[in-house]
């Protein structure tokens, strides 16, 4: 099993934190041994990409990460 680079790990941590806060991703281990992302996380990434009119891939591409790191309002984008 290849080890993730620190940058790669940071990316996933940023995404996980973002999706928990703004897309109600359930807390818990999201990574799987092969993909680093569970189905739940992919679904939330898709939801976020759809909201921001990004290409909906379910994967953490550069556009998605760039938006996740921008300054923003702390209110979730999806209703409770």
């Amino acid at each position, binding site marked *: 099993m290849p080890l993730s680079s620190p940058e790669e790990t940071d990316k996933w941590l940023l995404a996980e934190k973002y999706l928990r806060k*703004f897309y109600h991703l359930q807390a818990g281990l999201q990574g799987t041994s092969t993909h680093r992302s569970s189905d739940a996380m992919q679904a939330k990434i898709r939801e976020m990409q759809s*909201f*921001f*009119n*990004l*290409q909906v891939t379910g994967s953490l*591409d550069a*556009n998605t990460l760039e*938006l996740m790191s*921008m*300054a*923003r*309002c*702390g*209110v979730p*984008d999806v*209703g*409770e």
Partner: protein
Amino acid sequence: YNHFPRHLKWQNTNVTFRIVNYTPDLKKADVDRAIRNAFNIWADVTPLTFKKLHEGKADIMIAFGTKEHGDFNPFDGPDGLLAHAYPPGRDIGGDTHFDEDEHWSKDSDAYNLFLVATHEFGHALGLSHSSDPGALMYPVYSYSEGYPLSEDDITGIQALYGQCPNPNHRKVKPKPDAPNKCDPMLSFDAVTELRGETIIFKDRFYWRLHPQFAEPEQTLIKSTWPSLPNKVDAAYEYPEKDMVFIFSGIRMWALNGYNLVEGYPKYIHKLGLPKTVRTVDAAVYIPDTGKTLLFSEEQFWSYDEKTNTMDSGFPRSIEMDFPGMADEVDAALYKHGYLHFFHEHTQFEYSYSARKVIQIVRTNSFLNC
């Protein structure tokens, strides 16, 4: 626009607010003014009135705080989260908190308190986030000048509270919604290459087409380049110097990559254009000739990039030199040996060597529509 679930709203139109504490970043009077102006933005388009309380419990309690600040909804230090607000309701409902770890300003130097407050009060009145990047209720911060609401914001708030009964207050100029890439009547303001990407300017926005992205990405011009104007008339890349030139009115800016080059803006007349030319409609560099064509109204000029001089014998008529084309162009791009001219909702693909139009398609086909 979006509302919160159950369309939460204030049940009466007289909403009270209280500023619990102040940021040291600004004078107290500047904070008061930013908050009052932010409420006025919403009061101008609804029947709502906002009364300031100096003590006791108000509907909207406004506070500055850091990290965990009493609502179990902590801030995160500088940048990232800027503020949050709760939808209308009792107790914490409507309350609005700003992250004191941010630097707040009354201009574009830091996070503009008026803009963030207006966005947060949108939540405090019942608006959830909008997915329209031109709307004030879009979740991502971007600085802009002038009236902050878009049509989308106004429609959203009026769906909850109705219109303002005072006709004098209705004279607001909302920002138009973000352009829709697949609108069949879509026209472009300017198109250029930028290090292998294609940048398409339209109104306050630009689309970025990256060879590895299937979908164009739409962003506010001000989000990327705060000092560029909101409207771009023309743009072209001069790859030999890794520069992109952006034209707006009688001024031009230069980019190196995504960074603005110092020493700009310069007047377009420095290129050798006559003073009677007030805007450049389109610009395109042709690598085969080393010339940049500059289009304005029904004429065009040729600029030699090597000698930095305007070629003699110009201006010439667009209609005469580019047969089969419209007599004016909005935007132009040179790609794979062909010139792409955009005029209103039509795109002309022009063979420079054969001197003829080889294809006419809709402008929006360039955005995969």
